[in-house]
């Protein structure tokens, strides 16, 4: 979590200019101005398949609504492009529905629903130009909103796997599910300040809370798993984690962000990674810190990529330098990949930790200049 930042930014708001106030604490819904309107696409999944309706849309934001009236066999839908999952909705059992948003360039995509008689359906985006090449900052902040909404959707699903294991008292399954669930929270940490009290409720460490008996969230259960080796008393904590994430999901659906908030949030987060998280303090019991770092970098990079067109127009050198330094950091982390995730952070030597910190520092310094260029 980001306790000092969230407290400091909002407490100081009274003495800041109105512009900064909006940047630091924006959370009220605002209609998005400019840019193409969003298109709504419904995907009804069944044993037969998952045809999108309409199957052809114009360039721009697309809101997908996934429903499952009756199929036990098919419970998920993914939108694929260029061999990658661009957005997905999992665990849509009969009677449930779900939604996600994407901003899509013109091209051919597919909707995939494993298990169906016909599991791949065509989806086309028509038009000229590129959705991503829209240099308006409105488009950038809207796209970041969409990204956060998608990540929180995935967080809810992945956390449920984790909390189900906790409630079932299955230590091994819970340990397996812990890091993959956290990834979807750490990736949106650049804007965690806007989550208010949900951030400490979900992500506080033991030294962040005044009363340890009131400590909740991922790290409380992390301690139970890896330090106490017992899940006794953890079911209510798991229930509260699910509830807090559900509240977060409702909140981010209406949250809006300022360009400077994205830039400063990303910069502050990387600074935190390089100065304190690098010591291994975040996942001190599980040593899954590298998963978090990678997600933090992904989320910061997402913010940068969205601001990049606007930045390139005002300061192409800075944009290029940031590209190169993001690449350095990503390459530095890639050395520690293992299976679907990352090595145990306890096995990373002090020298290698310093090297990670150096590369993140080198990135965070120019990133601190971005907010001044995009407001």
């Amino acid at each position, binding site marked *: 979590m980001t306790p000092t930042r969230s407290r400091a930014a909002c407490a100081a708001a009274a003495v800041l*200019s109105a*512009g*900064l106030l909006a940047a630091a604490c924006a959370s009220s819904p605002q209609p998005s101005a400019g840019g193409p309107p969003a298109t709504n696409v419904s995907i009804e999944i069944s044993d037969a398949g998952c045809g999108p309706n309409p199957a052809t849309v114009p360039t721009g934001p697309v809101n997908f609504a996934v429903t499952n009236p009756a199929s036990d066999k098919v419970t998920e839908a993914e939108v694929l492009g260029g061999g990658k999952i661009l957005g997905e909705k999992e665990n849509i059992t009969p009677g449930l529905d779900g939604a996600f948003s994407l901003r899509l360039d013109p091209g051919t995509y597919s909707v995939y629903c494993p298990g169906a008689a016909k599991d791949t359906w065509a989806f086309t985006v028509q038009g000229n130009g590129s959705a991503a090449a829209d240099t308006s900052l409105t488009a950038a902040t809207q796209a970041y909103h969409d990204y956060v909404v998608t990540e929180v959707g995935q967080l809810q699903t992945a956390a449920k796997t984790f909390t189900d294991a906790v409630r079932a008292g299955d230590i091994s399954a819970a340990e397996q599910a812990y890091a993959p669930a956290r990834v979807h929270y750490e990736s949106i940490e650049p804007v965690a300040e806007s989550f208010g009290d949900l951030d400490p409720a979900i992500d506080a460490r033991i030294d962040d809370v005044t009363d340890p008996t009131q400590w909740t969230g991922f790290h409380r259960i992390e301690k139970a798993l890896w330090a106490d080796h017992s899940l006794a008393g953890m079911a209510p904590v798991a229930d509260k984690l699910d509830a807090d994430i559900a509240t977060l999901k409702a909140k981010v659906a209406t949250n809006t962000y300022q360009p*400077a908030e994205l830039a400063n949030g990303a910069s502050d987060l990387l600074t935190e990674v390089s100065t304190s998280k690098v010591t291994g303090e975040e996942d001190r019991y599980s040593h899954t810190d590298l998963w978090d770092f990678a997600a933090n970098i992904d989320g910061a990079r997402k913010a940068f990529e969205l601001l990049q067109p606007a930045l390139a127009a005002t300061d192409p050198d800075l944009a290029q*330098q940031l590209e190169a*330094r993001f690449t350095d950091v990503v390459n530095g982390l890639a050395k520690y990949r293992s299976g679907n995730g990352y090595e145990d952070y306890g096995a990373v030597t002090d020298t290698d930790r310093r090297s990670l910190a*150096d*590369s993140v*520092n*080198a*990135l965070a*310094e*120019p990133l*601190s*200049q971005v*907010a*001044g260029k995009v*407001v």
Partner: protein
Amino acid sequence: MELSRRRLLQGIAGAGAAGAGLALAGCAPSAAAAPTDVVDFHGPHQAGIATAVQDRLAFMTFDVTSTSRADVVELLKSWTTAAEAMTRGAAVPGAPPDDQVPPADTGEAVGLPAARLTVTVGFGPSLFTGPDGSDRFGLAARRPAAFVPLPALPGELLDPARSGGDIAVQACSDDPQVAFHAVRNLARIGRGTVVARWAELGFGKTSSTQGSADGDPGGTPRNLMGFKDGTRNIVGTDDAALDQHVWVADADGQGWLGGGSYLVARRIRMFVEPWDRDRLGDQEAVFGRFKDSGAPLTGKAEFDAPDYAATGADGPVIPANAHIRLASPENNGGLRILRRGYSYTDGIDATTGTLDAGLFFLAYMRDPNQFVTLQRKLGTSDALNEYIRHVGSGLFAVPPGTSGPDDWWGRALFS
């Protein structure tokens, strides 16, 4: 835009760019203090070597993390510009203040005078040749033959975490915060190209480069053992001695280093608690000087020439293993070095509960072998060795000074 720290202090910030370096001397409110307060940045030699020794030191070495020669050049240009401004008491140049970005200058020197700040830069052997023998930046062919890492020397137990570095920055000032501000801001500017390797703060000068005639009040400053050591240091205005012992001549080898020098930095831990229990007579025998006056044991006043031939009832008046005898030019074929060291402390040694304190030895010389020769002798025989140990080390080639606003540190090396 450039802001003079003094002008900020006077509350007239933003009244106009103080672009010319003349501002302080010519029309700043504090003009009266300016002539002695600002050390010229440009010149044939870098400032901070022959310059009259300032009270405080901030020293930092850096490792280059970038693999790009262009990045190193850009860094040196940016550093030169920033150091020149700070030397004048101005803020680090940059964009005007903007609520949305961090300020270009970190700010802790706002309101402080220039305080005779000098910033001196040197290049380590590792900048020329990597540990694997690689020619990192196309400089290997320009490495002077004399410029090889110091050999293992007697009297040392070096901590790699406090030794070496691709680039060293020595900032000296009469104000500790002005000195710290200088290295901190260079470290910040360099982020992404260099990372800091180790640093040392010196809280009190132990050397004078002003000699006996118009020297510092009280003569040579004392080290933490309470002694005046280095009394016969090279005087900063003695051009003949500087040319012979300190400045590298064009003909010495690599032309880019002509007018430059070599810097040897040694973190010399003093075991002050045992020293404080040693009787006065022995302390004086160890140095070969009287503690109170600083005079050699054969003289009456600090600057009296030592008489190494004088004998008493028990043998030589200045003992055979006395520090000044072993270090003296008379006993080393005329070898001299320019010393510029500072006392340091880094708190308490956690293992022993003793003070982690000593001398941060800085010496400039024409050839690193001058130091090697002296330390081979001192490290083997010096009576002082019972109370000291060399625990950190660095050797750096210090390029010549910059000629003017278009010049930058190391231009001749990289051109």
